[in-house]
């Protein structure tokens, strides 16, 4: 390696003092007894990480000082390409923002830029994933309405996750992303493609050399990450399968009502109950379709998001491993080579520091991430369960009213509504 290599951690090159301070303070951080990180970034964070289940929304409303929305996707056509621009609106009371309200237009690539900047700066923090660039399922039209809407929602979640993160939400890049009318000049600054290439090469080289040994807690974490990734993929698959089966069920169910109606026309005495059944089936089909819609909008994206999160976690673990590997390599050089002891010692110290920072960042962020994951998935599952109950309750009502109408017609007062 030449003396002028660009190190993996670019924090030194960012002259924003605030951020450095953040990092330093964060490095010295020790966790609270319950495992959550000490909120030591701007004071408003103090209340943000209680692990009790009470009113999270209310809390956030009290302590959250930045609100971001992504909406109004619009197609942009240029000579070279077509793409979608999303409107990003920010409302904030933070002092480091010049204004309290911003409105900018961003395209998917801009989000990708933001995320890569955040990851560069904080290699072992868990940065929420973006929706995928492409969807595999044979989507012909890239700008199909459903696709755009799904992506918009995911982008919205992404920015919200960033804004809720105690470190990332204070990132300079994040602020620029939210406020600059034109992002282009900012995107040209800083380490770009080549430096990332360098990092990748080094990462590969390190992984080939292998890690001496992973500290116990990270070994446990790695195991968890692998298992979690498996489980999320399974959950994702199962849920998509359920949606598929339900769609096919509804398609078949819809065949009932024209047949019952046709039969009703054939009969005299039976016409009324037959038409009743036909109408019940129509209503139940509608409820089933609504149910499928809800699944597609709530549970499927939530699970898919955490499939992507699992990949993020794997990348974070890899980067942490690399940082440790680099330190170990340099340390070994220090021990074996007799010349350049002083210079090597300095480098080793830098790398040791960097490793400690990286490990602490990850440890700190890990608990936050777990809590966030639990909360997200819990609410997605609850919502799905509620919708199921709602679906069955509505269908129940449909059939019960049919029964009532039939029993009212039947002779005598045989009232035994089931």
């Amino acid at each position, binding site marked *: 390696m030449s003396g002028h290599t660009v190190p993996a951690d670019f924090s030194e090159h960012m002259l924003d003092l605030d951020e450095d301070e953040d990092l330093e303070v964060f490095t010295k951080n020790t966790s609270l007894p319950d495992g959550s990180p000490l909120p030591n970034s701007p004071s408003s964070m103090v209340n943000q990480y209680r692990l009790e289940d009470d009113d999270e929304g209310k809390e956030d409303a009290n302590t959250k000082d930045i609100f971001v929305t992504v909406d109004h996707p619009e197609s942009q056509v240029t000579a070279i390409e077509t793409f979608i621009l999303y409107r990003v609106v920010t409302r904030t009371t933070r002092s480091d923002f010049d204004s309290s309200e911003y409105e900018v237009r961003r395209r998917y690539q801009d989000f990708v830029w933001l995320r890569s900047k955040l990851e560069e700066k904080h290699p072992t923090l868990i940065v929420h994933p973006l929706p995928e660039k492409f969807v595999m399922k044979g989507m012909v039209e890239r700008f199909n309405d459903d696709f755009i809407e799904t992506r918009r929602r995911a982008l919205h979640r992404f920015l919200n996750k960033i804004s809720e993160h105690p470190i990332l939400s204070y990132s300079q890049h994040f602020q620029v992303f939210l406020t600059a009318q034109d992002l282009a000049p900012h995107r040209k600054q800083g380490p770009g493609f080549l430096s990332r290439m360098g990092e990748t090469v080094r990462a590969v080289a390190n992984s080939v050399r292998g890690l001496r040994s992973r500290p116990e807690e990270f070994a446990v974490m790695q195991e*968890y990450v692998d*298992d*979690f990734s498996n*489980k999320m993929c*399974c*959950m994702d698959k*199962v849920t998509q*399968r*359920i949606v598929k*089966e*339900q769609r*096919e*069920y509804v398609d*078949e*169910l819809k*065949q*009932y009502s024209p*047949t*019952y109606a*046709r*039969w009703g026309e*054939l*009969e005299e*005495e*039976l016409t009324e*109950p*037959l038409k*009743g*059944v036909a109408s*019940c089936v129509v209503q*139940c089909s509608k409820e089933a379709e609504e149910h499928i819609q809800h699944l597609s909008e709530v549970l499927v994206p939530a699970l898919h998001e955490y499939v992507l999160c699992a990949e993020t976690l794997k990348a974070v673990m890899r980067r942490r491993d690399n940082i440790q590997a680099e330190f170990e390599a340099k340390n070994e050089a220090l021990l074996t080579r007799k010349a350049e002891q002083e210079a090597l010692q300095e480098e080793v110290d830098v790398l040791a520091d960097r490793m400690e920072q990286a490990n602490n960042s990850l440890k700190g962020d890990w608990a936050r991430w*777990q809590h966030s994951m*639990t909360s997200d*998935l*819990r609410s997605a*599952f*609850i919502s799905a*369960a*509620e919708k*199921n*109950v709602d*679906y*069955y*309750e509505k*269908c*129940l009502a449909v*059939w*019960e009213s*049919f*029964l009532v109408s*039939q*029993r009212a017609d*039947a002779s005598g007062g*045989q009232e*035994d509504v*089931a």
Partner: protein
Amino acid sequence: MADSVSSEEVAVISNTDITSTESENNIINTMVERGTALLRKLEINVAEAEKRTGKNTVNMQETYTVYLIEIRPAETEGGTPAAPDTLWRRYSEFELLRTYLLVTYPYIIIPPLPEKRAEFVWHKLSADNLDPDFVERRRVGLENFLLRVASHPVLSNDKIFFLFLTEEKGWRDAVLETGFQDKADSRLKSLSAMFRVKNPDKRFTALKQYSDELNSVISQLLRIRARVADRLYGVYKVHGNYGRVFSEWSAIEKEMGDGLQSAGHHMDTYAASIDDILEEEEHFADQLKEYLFYTDAVRSVCRKHELIQYELEMAAQDLAQKKQQKEELATGTVRIFSLKGMTSKLFGQESPEQKESRLAALEQSIQEGEETVKEKNTECQEFVRAAWDDIEHFKEQKDKDLREALISYAIMQISMCKKGIQVWSNAKECFSKM
């Protein structure tokens, strides 16, 4: 034809006054007139089914199922129920009984037997005749058949039917002795022949059309049901995968572990519940199938009427021709070309004696013809009268039965929804605790 029964009170054994739990146990949706002589005396059950092996007519080993018919005298107030008389019958014997009834009472809509082979099957359901679920449903269907016949104002008085219920060994001979086979063969031949009736009875035409359309609509309904059942089965069973994944996932989580684990159990319960749900729905399908097969019986009555009508028309036509011939012979004019006329022209007039004898023969023939027409006319009129009596009876029965079937279908749907609400409420609670 048997005398009509005196109008007794009608006891309706149907689902109107039964709670949903009871309706699950109640198999019979038949409108049973307690007034028929037979049912006043007897209670009839098809209690069991058993597998037997034996040699068949071509001396090959075969496995078949026999069904136990139990007869007990109808319960009297305060009396202890007597031990039942029992005998075993196999499906082919039921078929023989039914064929006999079809031939002997052509103007009656004979109740159908349960299907010979499983049709409208959805994937999980076995199409195997020896499958225990199929056998069980067939047992119920056979009992239903016997009760329908026993409660029919005309059929319940039939001697052969009574023997079917009481004489295990000698019954087959008794049936064959009635000679119904000959009538069956000739009727069958005529029925399959193509013939056109000149003045079709509009009521029967309308009935046949209704019957055909009903057949078509019920078939379609049964096909759709099978596909829907397949799909619903898929939906429920896939949720079983949630059970498995939740369980595995709970092992790696600390906070979420318990909640996931217990939610997983509820997912397993949900997935398992579809089996019972579809089992119940099978009963609804069987009720539809009964009326699907009834349409064949209705069609058969219509065809038989057509045949009688046709025979009447043929007899009348034949008589008219003969009368025409007589007139020509008597007056010597040939209005209609006839071979006899031509030959007499060619080979000379016949002698007055010949003419007399021919006239006499024709006269005789005409008289016979008139007798035949009269008979056919009476036969036709009586057929129509008896048939429409039965058709009205059938219509009432059908409306009542099918209405009850639709109601019990709704009850089933409600039960399914309640189960769903229960399971997902439980699951939600588990999730809330995560």
